[in-house]
């Protein structure tokens, strides 16, 4: 693959917070990031709890979270050193568009593999809204940068602005009488939930004479769900977008015969709190890769109709394919939260099938040589 990149970042925007001013990095438009300045990176509408348009003039901001090394070094009570990437206020129709005003903030939050985790956020007396997503920042070759999809190496395919309709919640809000900015501390590290198993791959074989294997290489990125709560009580967390996390070590799973296998590895999840005048918020999100290998089994194979014959003695390895999203691929039992997970395999993960007899291999979304999504070795 031409350029391998991956990384993690997130952004939390606390409009008008006590600390946001300190977090703002001066906008720079130097020669290496000129192509980032002014790019619209997220847009949408701000909606009230009744799903109707929120008022105009409410601030919405985009922040970049630091990489996992920075997050892991935080002690309980310490503030996450996020960086403001851009900010705006809603229009009369409650829409917003955030352009990159601080390329430096964005670039300084990118990991060595190129991924940055972002959070668009609005905190005011009108309510709290948030959404996490990630992007890959790739050198464009002319001294500038291209914003790509984080879950795959798009090789300079610019991705359009993330569309996010933020729904403001006033649950546990003390007042909602005005649109004035709320005052918040910013995200504070509270505690670690420890490592949690996450599905990062799956293969299926339903016939003897075929073996299957999976390797999760160092540097492979996975997209992991983020949970958010206004009470921090078990069962109160809901999905709030995703972050991307890269593995730092490789895991090679046992080669198996007939079975329907989920491959799992562990990511560390942690709890962060944003203390605001109106009400606090808590997030559960990944702050690093732990490693480990575990297989789980299911009795239900996918429907895979796109098949090719494989002769005895042949081997097929798929080193890149768009994978499925496992809706409940990861869970944090202590807070009763199940989150989505997604591994879009790049050259950092691979599926291997070896055929000792004449059999077939089938894809769920396309032929194995194309974009099969899931692969099934069968009679």
């Amino acid at each position, binding site marked *: 693959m031409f350029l391998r990149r991956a990384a993690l970042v997130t952004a939390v925007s606390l409009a008008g917070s006590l600390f946001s001013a300190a977090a703002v990095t001066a906008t720079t438009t130097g020669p290496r990031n000129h192509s980032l300045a002014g790019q619209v990176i997220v847009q949408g509408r701000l909606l009230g709890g009744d799903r109707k348009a929120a008022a105009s003039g409410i601030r919405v901001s985009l922040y970049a979270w630091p990489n996992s090394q920075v997050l892991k070094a935080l002690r309980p009570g310490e503030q996450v050193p996020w960086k403001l990437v851009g900010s705006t206020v809603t229009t009369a129709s409650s829409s917003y568009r955030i352009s990159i005003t601080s390329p430096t903030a964005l670039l300084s939050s990118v990991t060595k593999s190129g991924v940055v985790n972002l959070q668009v956020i609005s905190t005011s007396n009108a309510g709290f809204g948030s959404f996490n997503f990630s992007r890959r920042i790739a050198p464009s070759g002319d001294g500038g940068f291209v914003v790509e999809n984080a879950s795959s190496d798009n090789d300079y395919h610019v991705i359009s602005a993330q569309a996010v309709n933020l729904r403001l919640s006033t649950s546990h809000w003390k007042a909602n009488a005005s649109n004035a900015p709320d005052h918040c501390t910013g995200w504070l590290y509270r505690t670690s939930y420890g490592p949690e198993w996450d599905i990062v791959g799956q293969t299926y074989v339903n016939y003897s004479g075929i073996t299957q294997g999976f390797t999760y290489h160092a540097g492979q990125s996975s997209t992991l769900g983020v949970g958010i709560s206004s009470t921090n009580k078990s069962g109160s967390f809901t999905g709030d977008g995703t972050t991307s996390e890269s593995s730092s070590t490789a895991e090679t799973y046992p080669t198996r015969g007939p079975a329907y296998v989920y491959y799992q590895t562990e990511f560390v999840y942690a709890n962060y709190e944003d203390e605001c005048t109106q009400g606090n918020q808590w997030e559960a999100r990944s702050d690093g890769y732990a490693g480990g290998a575990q297989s789980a089994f299911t009795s239900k194979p996918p429907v895979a109709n796109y098949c090719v014959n494989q002769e005895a003695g042949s081997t097929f390895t798929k080193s890149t*394919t768009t994978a499925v999203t496992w809706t409940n691929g990861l869970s944090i039992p202590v807070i009763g939260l199940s989150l989505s997970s997604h591994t879009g395999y790049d050259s950092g993960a691979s599926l291997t099938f070896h055929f000792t007899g004449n059999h077939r291999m089938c894809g769920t979304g396309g032929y194995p040589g*194309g974009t099969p999504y899931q692969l099934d070795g069968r009679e």
Partner: protein
Amino acid sequence: MGVSRWCIAATLAGVVSAGCDSAPALNTGPLGNGGQPGALCNPVHSSTQSLTNGFTALSNGSKSPVVIDRIALDDPHQLRLLGAYIVPISGHNLLGDWAGFPPTANELSVGVEWAQRVPAAGAHIAPDRPNQVVNLVLALKPEGLVGTAKGIDVYYSGGGIKYHMLSSTTLRVVVSPPKHC
């Protein structure tokens, strides 16, 4: 590295590269982007045996037919292309890979319309119908104990435009024994 990307890099470096202007863009045409990367290894059972490679599905995503101009192996090493054919597929199964060429009747899955095959060069591929593909089938022969190629080059035309698709599955053919996949 793809041709177009290399040309971009050469241009950015101020290098004038012959062929960049005339080479068709890689993996941007109606036959798609060549799929997502993988690796295929197949055995043949003697140094004189050939291989049937029917792993590649082609579908035309445009609204008008395209014509295949030429099929070639990309960066072959001790692997020779003996022939290339387009085989209609009426179901979901491709021919797949078999030691020996041509495939025997027992090796033809239901829906592989082998009798209706045509040489790939000059073959017309009609616009997509739902779930409709054709199978690109190659006859390959290793010229040593191991033959390899980085993929299959499909040069084709449509609407007066030249295209180039490179399949993303690398090929390896071994004489087994002594070699194994």
